[in-house]
């Protein structure tokens, strides 16, 4: 969401270097991204649509998918509120150690997910120092997902908040608007696209998370088993086609999320142009 440049005049025809770049990029993408994804979709649909449906509607798969979507939705709701609040504090307030806090926000991103999982197990597990043992419960799944998705909303809202003109808020305040009204009528509409794309990214991350969840959730079928762990289990027990079926579902959700982010991006650019 940085400053957008004017639409560029493009080189008509383009240099030969650019066409080589285009060719190379397409080839690399096809080999690394398209081919494997094609394999999944093909494998899931090769046994016919009824088999795909059977694999997805398996009770254990349904339970895993329900849990994943439910917890991810909760994570998104919490992140939307807390992420915006943290971004607000980081941009508008001054306090000692602010730079350090700002750097630590990225830690869940930089920390390998398995280490994140182990850390949470150490903290909230049976021998944790805080005395709450949530290991192998749904709360644990929620905590793990909250940890890994923490940076997304903050990092999308922060730059927008930095650029936001304070004149409008001051004008509203001088006209006697209540701080709450200022937030609701002026700040929030400006932040909404950033919050939405942050939430979408967090959602995509949450439904696919594996490393952070696998240690602390206990992976009890029908209780704490999330979709990616279920897929992993199917692969391990030599049943790749039902693994592929559930994977296709996750793939479709991921693609949908990317489309939403793209739509939000276009929507904000339209606002800029007017």
């Amino acid at each position, binding site marked *: 969401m940085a*400053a957008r*440049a004017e639409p*560029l*005049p*493009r*080189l008509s025809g*383009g*240099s030969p*270097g*650019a*066409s080589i*770049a*285009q060719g*190379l*990029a397409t080839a*690399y*993408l096809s080999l*690394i*991204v398209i*081919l*494997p*994804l094609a*394999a*999944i979709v093909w*494998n899931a649909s090769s046994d016919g649509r009824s088999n795909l449906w059977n694999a997805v509607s398996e009770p254990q798969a349904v339970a895993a998918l329900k849990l994943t979507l439910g917890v991810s939705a909760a994570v998104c709701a919490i992140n939307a509120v807390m992420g915006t609040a943290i971004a607000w504090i980081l941009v508008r307030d001054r306090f000692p150690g602010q730079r350090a806090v700002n*750097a630590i926000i*990225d*830690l869940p991103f*930089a*920390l*390998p*997910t*398995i*280490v994140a999982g*182990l*850390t949470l197990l*150490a*903290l909230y597990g049976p021998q944790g*120092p805080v005395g709450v043992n949530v290991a192998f419960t749904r709360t644990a799944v929620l905590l793990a997902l909250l*940890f890994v998705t923490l940076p997304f909303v903050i990092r999308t809202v922060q730059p927008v908040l930095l650029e936001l003109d304070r004149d409008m808020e001051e004008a509203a305040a001088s006209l006697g608007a209540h701080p709450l009204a200022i937030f609701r009528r002026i700040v929030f509409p400006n932040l909404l696209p950033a919050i939405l794309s942050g939430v979408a*990214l967090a959602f*995509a991350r949450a439904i*696919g*998370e*594996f*490393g952070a969840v*696998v*240690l602390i959730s206990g992976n009890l079928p029908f209780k704490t088993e999330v979709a*990616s762990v279920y*897929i*992993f289990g199917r*692969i391990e027990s030599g049943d*790749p086609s039902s693994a*592929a079926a559930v*994977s296709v579902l*996750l793939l479709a959700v*991921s*693609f949908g999320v*990317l489309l939403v982010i*793209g739509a939000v991006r276009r929507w904000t650019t339209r606002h800029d142009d007017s």
Partner: protein
Amino acid sequence: MAPVCLVFWRAFEHGVGPAWDAVTTPSARHAFQVTLLIAAVAVPANTVFGVICALAIVRRRFPGKGIVNALVDLPLALSPVVVGLAFLLLYGRQGWFGTWLDKHDIEIVFALPGMILVTIFVSLPFVVREVVPVLREIGTEQEQAAATLGASPFQTLRRVTFPAIRWAVGYGVVLTTARALGEFGAVSVVSGHIVGKTETMTLHVEERVQSFDYVGAYAASVVLALLAIATLLAMSMFKPKEGV
């Protein structure tokens, strides 16, 4: 930060000696080497491709550009387990290329090449995503000027374009490296968990936990956490200079 401190504390709870012994066991050392090797292949590959792909996305108009754009982002949104499964279905024994690979005695899945491929997949978007906005912002005027003055496309790239995007590339490389070193889910699916052969640092942590060797797990985690902190430092070094 508290959770990370806890890991450090747990690792050194019984003194530095046992922790040091735990990270210098042959299997831990080997896991560390495997991780570094994978990153050493994946990061340069994605850096070169990332710059090329960013150039193609920003400077060219071609049919299907929107799709290319979405495909570059997909690894960010996709579950790592699904990525692993995709490569398994391609190169595994029953996969598309399985019989051919079997005949020629080439191992991809449950061996290093497969682990490198999935790592390339999951760390693919970072350089592209950092370089694209910078390329948009600098525009083409300088490049056109260079071309008018008789510079070859290659010279233009090296002398004009690259200096402008080098900070963005650097930032992207840091993110790519962090992701490559820390990948777990995708690597876990295709590695086959062969201790001392296809075990990375992250898989080693899990394997230690499963065998109730918490000192070993925490000690290996400390190594990974230190790498993460180094990444954060590198990120804050590159960040203010972004877009110069």
